[in-house]
């Protein structure tokens, strides 16, 4: 039986237990009382009069506090009842009266609480295994029956049978008498180690191993890897004066007394810490850092987790003390059913968080079942969230009417799952009977608290806020979409990098550092990053916050802050010191404390810390964007630099009438005087600029890669990876995979060696026999000049080996075409075995061979004729340049069509090399550049590599001639 105290018209309730005085008015009579059904009858003598706050003359401010405190704990003082207990007791009482399966709504109405709060309490009870849940709408709850109530741990085992063994092990370890066994959870990133530990805690409470409210303390050993003293201090506590500036501090072991301490990434714990920890495991005693005379005791169940092989990364002595090793299998070891349930659960959770129905197509669901997920469940969840967030963004911006997810909305790597499906026969046949999967906002099974819980609000709230912000700034359309998308991506990519740990760090930090100090630190870091043009490590920010806190305390206590090497620091780090002085001023403004200049010396060291520590890694791949049009490249670079808050992308604009040579020099200038040894990634818009890379590589003597048809997301991705210190090749491969119209560099770059023979390669995986048979057929049916040709049969175990062999062959031969099962090199024409055996391909091979023979002859003829040019080298270069122009213009230029032009260019280059004028007096065709801008540009840029290679300048007349030639080809194509 309950009574309530009503304040004012709008009910504000205070809950009282029978026979105890009201905490509001300290009276035992009066008040509304509830009947068995949960309905109230007014007993109402008390309302708004004689309230405790008035009687004790409490100020208005604290009265509010007083009311606020009542939200969760309903009666203050010795007989406090939590709302959740009240809900539980009500359920019990109703059940005794035969009323089972009630909704949150009914309970809320009866108790006069907010429905969302009651719902949250019910879910909490459900997680603790105290109540059962019935799916359907509305969701109904009833007391869990019997002692075998299901905890979330049991539900996990039911949902993920692969984890059954782990669950049983965990339970056994928790229940092991007398105090439970320490455990080591081993599993890859994202397999759910932290969650598992949390569930074990819930189970331990539900099983009565610990009292309700027993602590569950988590600590990530990787957080303080570089400062072992700090780490041990966190763990074991610190005695005042243990080291300079140390003040008395409780350790996490102490905080976890009577509960569980979860040590994540325990392999990062230094050996000293492992030793201290096993003393604690053995004897239950420990010391704070700096303590010698005291032995402290604590009753803590230790759960450790590691991603590494425990055999190699933990001290043997430590390993021995943790007998229970629990293995969490990676996602790929789990069944499709399990994965399906996870995907369903994650979408359902999102729908509940969002408060909107989410529809997912069967195809999209299927993709989620199959795509490779190296970071396991964590990644799966993050990817589901990413997709939902994007779909939600589309909905918010009005692009879509509902939150719907089609296959096309998935990130590339998820979509790729559909391609992999063939490799997973079970997945292909996995039955997804519905065309659409709808996830209602009031989710049935979802394990989520309804209502806007603090942490779940963030992503969606952030999207809405960001949208509003951008719109206010007048940004619309595609740009808005792009920025929004990048923002979301950014958010999640951080998660994927494991930075989510930071949130936990931050909370830890918030416990240690006052909010205003934290805010001040953040402002300083932002300012310093802007001024210094680089990012400060996360560590620096934490350390700085702690430092400022200490400095303030010391100054307030009147202790003098002095820096012994102030002048040296000032001289060594001029820039950082200047920033530090500015920050000092900021600190004074905010804290109203006068800081001595010595403090700037300390700050300088924080700002400079990063540079010293990471000197090796400081060298990054240089990212240069080169785009046609005024300001296009600059705008792109600006966007990326702003998003990443760093000046890491260089831009070179290329006005349409600019000479490629000048642009090339500009690019070179950007990279000099000291080009990054890690190399350069060029991002360009058109294939014609691809040739820059070869020359840059030679001139700067650093590796250069180029991505063409690049757009802002590519630049962003490249820059982000570069900032993280990725190697050039890694960045190149990843961005290339994302670039849809990737165009390879010209073939001739790899053919510097002189090839005076032609070759057709026949390749078979099955053995040399069939390759030889193919050779025989080709020799029989192709009238090839033996003096020029070789047909080379090769045998290979795999495609990689084949490529290796090919590149060896290419050192001496120009490979005209390849006959094999697979296309081994997309730049070399390829014919299938079938087409050759049936002789269908013969005509085409003959045509290719003819063109090659022609050029071979041409080279021989010209060798005696030209004075300066070596035709054997020049002809392939010219052909590559012409082919590149053809590609740029979308022309399938036949080799034969180009023969005349190749010949002509050989002669032209030779004349230019001898310093002769070429154009004569013919100026009539000068106008061609203006008639057809795109064509003219393609030709001019296409010829740039030749000009650069031979150090010559092809004049306007000659250009026009070539432009006319290509225009006629275009005319032929267009009919």
């Amino acid at each position, binding site marked *: 039986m309950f009574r309530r105290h009503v304040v004012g018209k709008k009910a504000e309730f205070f809950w009282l237990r029978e026979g105890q005085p009201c905490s509001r008015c300290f009276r035992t009579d009066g008040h509304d009382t509830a009947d068995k059904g949960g309905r109230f009858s007014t007993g109402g003598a008390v309302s708004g009069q004689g309230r405790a706050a008035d009687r004790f003359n409490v100020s208005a401010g604290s009265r509010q506090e007083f009311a606020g405190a009542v939200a969760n704990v309903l009666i203050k003082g010795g007989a406090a009842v939590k709302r959740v207990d009240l809900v539980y007791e009500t359920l019990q009482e109703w059940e005794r009266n035969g009323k089972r399966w009630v909704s949150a709504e009914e309970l809320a109405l009866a108790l006069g609480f907010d429905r969302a709060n009651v719902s949250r309490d019910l879910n909490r009870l459900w997680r603790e295994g105290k109540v059962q849940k019935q799916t359907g709408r509305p969701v109904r709850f009833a007391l869990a029956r019997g002692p075998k109530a299901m905890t979330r741990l049991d539900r996990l085992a039911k949902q993920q049978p692969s984890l059954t063994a782990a669950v049983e092990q965990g339970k056994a370890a928790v229940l092991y008498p007398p105090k439970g066994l320490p455990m080591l959870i081993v599993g890859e990133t994202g397999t759910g180690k932290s969650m598992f530990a949390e569930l074990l805690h819930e189970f331990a409470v539900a099983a009565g191993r610990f009292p309700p409210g027993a602590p569950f303390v988590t600590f990530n050993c990787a957080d303080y890897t570089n400062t072992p003293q700090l780490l041990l201090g966190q763990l074991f506590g610190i005695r005042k004066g243990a080291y300079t500036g140390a003040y008395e501090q409780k350790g996490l072991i102490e905080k976890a007394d009577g509960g569980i301490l979860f040590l994540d990434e325990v392999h990062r714990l230094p050996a000293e810490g492992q030793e201290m920890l096993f003393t604690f495991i053995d004897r239950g005693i420990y010391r704070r850092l700096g303590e010698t005379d005291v032995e402290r005791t604590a009753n803590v169940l230790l759960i450790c987790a590691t991603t590494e092989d425990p055999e190699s990364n933990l001290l043997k002595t430590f390993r021995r003390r943790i007998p229970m090793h629990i293995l969490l299998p990676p996602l790929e070891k789990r069944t499709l059913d399990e994965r399906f349930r996870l995907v369903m659960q994650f979408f359902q959770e999102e729908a509940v968080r969002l408060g909107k129905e989410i529809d997912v197509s069967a195809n999209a669901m299927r993709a989620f079942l199959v795509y490779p997920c190296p970071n396991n469940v964590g990644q799966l969840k993050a990817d589901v969230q990413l997709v939902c967030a994007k779909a939600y963004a589309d909905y918010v911006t009005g692009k879509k009417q509902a939150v719907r997810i089609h296959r096309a909305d998935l990130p590339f790597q998820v979509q790729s799952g559909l391609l992999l499906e063939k490799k997973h026969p079970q997945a292909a046949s996995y039955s997804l009977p519905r065309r659409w999967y709808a996830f209602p906002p009031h989710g049935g099974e979802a394990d989520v608290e309804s209502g806007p819980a603090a942490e779940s609000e963030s992503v969606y709230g952030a999207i809405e806020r960001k949208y509003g912000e951008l719109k206010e700034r007048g940004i619309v359309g595609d740009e808005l979409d792009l920025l929004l998308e990048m923002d979301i991506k950014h958010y999640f990519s951080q998660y994927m990098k494991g930075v989510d740990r930071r949130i936990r760090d931050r909370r830890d930090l918030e416990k240690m550092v006052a909010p205003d100090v934290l805010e001040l630190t953040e402002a300083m870091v932002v300012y310093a990053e802007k001024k210094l043009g680089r990012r400060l490590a996360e560590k620096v920010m934490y350390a700085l916050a702690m430092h400022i806190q200490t400095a303030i305390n010391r100054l307030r206590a009147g202790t003098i802050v002095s820096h012994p090497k102030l002048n040296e620091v000032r001289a060594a780090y001029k820039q950082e010191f200047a920033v530090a002085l500015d920050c000092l001023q900021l600190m004074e403004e905010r804290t109203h404390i006068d800081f001595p200049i010595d403090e700037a010396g300390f700050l300088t060291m924080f700002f400079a810390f990063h540079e010293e520590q990471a000197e090796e890694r400081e060298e990054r791949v240089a990212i240069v964007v080169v785009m046609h049009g005024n300001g296009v490249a600059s705008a792109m670079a600006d966007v990326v630099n702003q998003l990443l808050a760093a000046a890491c992308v260089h831009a070179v604009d290329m006005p349409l009438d600019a000479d490629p040579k000048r642009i090339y020099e500009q690019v070179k200038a950007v990279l000099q005087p000291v080009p990054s040894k890690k190399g350069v990634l060029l991002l360009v818009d058109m294939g014609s600029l691809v040739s820059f890379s070869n020359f840059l590589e030679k001139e700067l003597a650093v590796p250069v890669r180029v991505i063409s048809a690049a757009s802002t997301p590519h630049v962003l991705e490249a820059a982000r990876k570069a900032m993280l210190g990725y190697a050039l090749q890694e960045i190149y491969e990843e961005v290339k995979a994302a670039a849809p119209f990737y165009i390879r560099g010209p073939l001739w770059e790899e053919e510097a060696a002189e090839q005076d023979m032609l070759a057709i390669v026949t390749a078979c995986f099955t053995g040399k026999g069939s390759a030889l048979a193919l050779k025989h057929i080709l020799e029989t049916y192709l009238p090839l000049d033996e003096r020029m040709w070789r047909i080379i049969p090769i045998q290979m175990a795999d495609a990689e080996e084949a490529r290796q062999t090919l590149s060896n062959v290419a050192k001496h031969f120009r490979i005209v075409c390849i006959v094999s099962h697979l296309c081994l090199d997309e730049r070399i024409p390829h014919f299938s075995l079938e087409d050759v055996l049936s002789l269908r391909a013969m005509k085409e091979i003959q045509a290719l061979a003819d063109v090659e023979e022609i050029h071979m002859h041409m080279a021989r003829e010209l060798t005696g004729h030209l004075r300066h040019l070596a035709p054997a080298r020049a002809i392939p270069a010219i052909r590559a340049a012409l082919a590149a122009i053809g590609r740029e213009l979308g022309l399938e230029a036949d080799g034969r*069509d180009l023969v*005349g032009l190749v010949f*002509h260019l050989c002669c032209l280059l030779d004349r230019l090399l001898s310093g002769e004028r070429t154009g004569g007096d013919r100026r009539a065709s000068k106008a061609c550049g203006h008639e057809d801008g795109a064509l003219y540009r393609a030709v001019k840029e296409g010829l740039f590599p030749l000009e650069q290679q031979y150090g010559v300048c092809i004049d306007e007349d000659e250009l026009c001639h070539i432009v006319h030639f290509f225009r006629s080809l275009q005319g032929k194509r267009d009919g």
Partner: protein
Amino acid sequence: MNILLICAAGMSTSLLVTKMQEAAKERGMEATIWAVSADEAKDHLDRADVVLIGPQIRYKFAAFKKEGEARGIPVDVINPADYGRVNGAGVLDFALRLKK
């Protein structure tokens, strides 16, 4: 017999001209063979019996063909294979066939 070769600038064809002249000499043929650029060609057309065009200016073929028809001179584009191989004899044969 007068054979006129037309190419872009009149230079790439000079090698071919040499080869054709050698071939004619071998056969004991009396032939005048010379090359000019496309811009200069108009002034030379009247002196030619046959006009051959380099494949790299194939796009001018139609215009020259018209000029040739007006004068009753055969005009054609040199086969790229012969051109690329600088096959003097081959191109000479081609010219002779055209003239017939």
